[in-house]
């Protein structure tokens, strides 16, 4: 499986070959300078396609057969339907019915609803997954049961890998809530509306074959066409692409936890007191409870200051939509849409713009939006005293979830990790993170309920908040306080020398290895 290992610039041991492909070890922020040309899809001729534009076929199996699905191919799906997705399993089960083996499944993310893929890996239909693995899939991979190495990339890193030819998609299957017979598609309308389809855009541009699967067929033209039919081979109409109740949460909830509210308020006050909150600024926060509360607190502070944002970055939620409608921001630039308010807004408000990982996050390109964001609030499972952070594994080394846009967001003007100082007696601040997902050079502030630590590299932020009444402390002091509460320093993860996955950096280099954790010790003593 692997030819050997090397130590990268972050001091992490990484494989030199992953799933048969040679790798470049991480070289440092901005140090990797790839050369050559972008990848591209095969040349197609329009005369090979129906002159009336009707690319519909009767079934997904027929579409896959026409695309020439074969053993060992790479098939891709997107995750905008989240835990309500039915299309990815439909694709892989159809492949099983066709007798296909050893596929690489390349999702933009996976969810608990994809647990049956374990059976498909056991059956040999799927060889390995290149994408986020959490819950049961993460457990399966962590136990070393997957035949290939998992490859975890950021949203931007996935675009980079596709467009640089690092991974070649043979067949992309795109679930579309709204599509026409030509293959134009969007996610903003239809009974399974999910908002943006940005994560499927690279697949549509670079895959050899593209199949659109829809339960919301509309007469040509489907407007707007976030997925362009000119890139699509076949359209398959199905009764349902997913469970709408699990595609969106209806409402995304601001945390009610007093501890998390403290964290969110500290983060918002930091943005204000550091002078980042000013007219025309921009920020990004996710859809988690702390992030939403941060946004709500910041919105109050913006009202008090009479300041408006030029743009805010989604994942969009009701909280952001309310800000847009109130005039607190000029635009929402939306990578994924998390609730019904967001879906309705993106479908009706031209100021609510669907983006893709190309515009937002792609590192190997002529710039992207990520570095133009003034402040971003993110979570993490661990951060260490050098501000390196982990977002993919538990502290015991088990895969927890994917990277998402997290790595890409680190390029913001001020990157804030906001999180509880310990979870279930598990301190968040470590001597060394179990799995390196984000280099400490890019992480500026750690906000917990017990205090705020500023990266010593950011003297400007230290100076800007000197007069603030925020509880700003040294990260090692914060670590010591938490360890005192938790009863001492936690044991580091006990890992084997067996790799189960790799973490890619945004430029395609290998940042770290996920090692198989040692089997749980005998509880008897």
């Amino acid at each position, binding site marked *: 499986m692997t030819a050997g290992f090397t130590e990268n610039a972050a001091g992490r041991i990484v494989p030199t070959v992953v799933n048969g492909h040679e790798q470049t070890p991480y070289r440092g922020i901005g140090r990797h300078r790839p050369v050559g040309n972008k990848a591209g899809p095969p040349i197609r001729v329009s005369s090979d396609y129906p002159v009336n534009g009707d690319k519909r076929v009767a079934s997904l199996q027929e579409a896959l057969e026409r695309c020439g699905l074969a053993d060992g191919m790479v098939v891709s799906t997107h995750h905008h339907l989240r835990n309500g997705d039915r299309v990815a399993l439909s694709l892989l089960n159809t492949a099983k019915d066709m007798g296909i083996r050893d596929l690489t499944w390349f999702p933009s993310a996976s969810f608990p609803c994809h647990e049956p893929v374990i059976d498909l890996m056991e059956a040999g239909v799927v060889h390995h997954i290149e994408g986020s693995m959490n819950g049961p899939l993460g457990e399966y991979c962590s136990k070393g049961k997957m035949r290939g190495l998992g490859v975890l990339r950021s949203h931007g890193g996935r675009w980079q890998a596709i467009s640089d030819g690092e991974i070649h998609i043979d067949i992309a299957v795109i679930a579309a809530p709204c599509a026409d017979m030509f293959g134009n598609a969007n996610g903003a309308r239809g009974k399974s509306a999910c908002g943006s389809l940005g994560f499927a855009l690279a697949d549509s541009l670079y895959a050899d074959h593209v199949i659109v699967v829809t339960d919301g067929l509309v007469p040509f033209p489907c407007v707007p066409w976030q997925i362009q039919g000119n890139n699509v081979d076949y359209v398959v109409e199905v009764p349902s692409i997913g469970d709408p109740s699990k595609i969106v949460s209806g409402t995304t909830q601001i945390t009610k936890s007093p*501890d998390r509210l403290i964290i969110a308020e500290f983060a918002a006050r930091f943005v204000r007191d550091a002078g980042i909150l000013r007219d025309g600024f921009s920020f990004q926060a996710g859809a988690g409870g702390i992030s939403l509360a941060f946004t709500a607190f910041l919105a109050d502070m913006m009202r008090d200051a009479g300041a408006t944002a030029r743009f805010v970055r989604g994942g969009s939620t009701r909280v952001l939509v309310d800000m847009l409608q109130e005039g607190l921001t000029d635009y929402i630039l939306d990578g994924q849409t998390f609730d019904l308010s967001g879906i309705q807004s993106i479908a009706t408000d031209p100021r609510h713009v669907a983006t893709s990982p190309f515009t937002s996050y792609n590192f190997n390109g002529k710039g992207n939006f990520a570095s133009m964001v003034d402040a971003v609030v993110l979570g993490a499972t661990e951060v260490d005293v050098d501000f390196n952070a982990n977002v993919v594994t538990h502290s015991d080394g088990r895969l927890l979830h994917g990277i998402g846009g997290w790595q890409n967001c680190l390029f913001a003007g001020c990157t804030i990790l906001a999180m509880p100082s310990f979870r279930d007696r598990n301190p968040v601040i470590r001597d060394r993170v179990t799995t390196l997902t984000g280099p400490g050079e890019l992480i500026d502030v750690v906000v917990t309920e017990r205090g705020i630590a500023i990266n010593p590299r950011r003297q400007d932020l230290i100076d800007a908040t000197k007069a603030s009444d925020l509880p700003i402390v040294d990260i090692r002091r914060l670590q010591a306080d938490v360890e005192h509460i938790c009863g*001492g320093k936690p044991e580091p993860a006990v890992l084997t020398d067996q790799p189960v996955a790799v973490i890619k950096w945004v430029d395609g280099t290998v940042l770290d290895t996920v090692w198989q954790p040692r089997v749980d010790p005998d509880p008897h003593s």
Partner: protein
Amino acid sequence: MTGRSAEAGFAGRGVRSDLRVKIEEREDGGLTVDLQSKVEAYYGAAIRDQVRDELEHLGVENATVTIQDMGALPFTIAARVETAALRAGLLEDKALDAVPEPDRVPTERGRVRRSRLYLPGNDPKYMVNAGLYGPDAVILDLEDSVHPAEKDSARLLVANAVRHVDFAGAEIMVRINQLPAGLEDLAAVIPSGPDLILIPKVEDPAEVQEVDRTITTMLETLEWHRSIWIMPILESALGIESAFDIARSCDRVVALTVGLEDLMADLGVSGSAKEQATHYARARIVNAAVAASVQPIDSVYADVSDLDGLTSWCERSKALGFQGMGCLHPRQIPIVHDAFAPTPKEIERAQAIVAAFEQAQKEGLAIVSIGSKMIDAPIVQRAAKIVEQARALGLLLEEGSGQ
């Protein structure tokens, strides 16, 4: 005797920061710890060591201990292990005089007590972060929030929390049960060194005096020289009528408060007219407390989602003369603090009065005046109290402080 066993604590779905401990006595073989823990990878060895140390300290030498741990902190582990051993009948009375005095500085009689945050006494997950919300006091509750079957467990959890949890400078209060059960609570918690004991449903000064004597005796045995205050809670018509006698029943009493729900039940009035129905009682408490030179403290505002209602309640409470009130949720604390702190205007006026008084003293004048207004002694006294409170709350810009 062997074969005795018992369980304590909670584990399972939805439980956080707690553990279930089962202790089974055996004839020999030492201590065996069978542990399932959410934090096995990080603290498994530490938990096993702690459990063995706790049991050896308690004199338990041979037992099988089975633990299901949901990420409990050490103070909780200690409490649950001791409770299981106690329930199994494995413990002998420990000598009180062997307990070291905590190094926390005792609180002062006249300390500001605007807010007191209630914490259920048998639920550890709320305890460790309680100080972060900045309440003037926390109340570890052994009474209404604890199931009758769990009183023993809660006592030990509260005792461990008082001794080991950092409440960030909040005054540490414990609400005991009504006497005589409250005496068992005192036996468990006094050796941990709480700052103040709340006694519920007090109707007679003798109840307070009994608690006072018990505390005094225990402190003498421990050879500790620290203050432990008392705040009686009046929750019945009889208690209200005895307010003044209760307030001055012993030197440990520093404040008087009211329990409105029980009082309303005793009065036989419904919840919709709470303020109207209890107005007399609350005014009586303020009067009795002030007459006895202790602090009048209001009850709680039960609807934690109604912050506007809380704000207006606080305004009326302060107007009635109360100096603080209980909080059932951290989000109530800043509102209560704002309401019961002197306003900038009040502070400014109080400072002017005190300055005018001091100037008059210097000049040997008997009459103090600001502009055309005469200022008499009670107004000066009240102004001095406001200045003192503002200073305690850090609201006063001291000359030369550089603030």
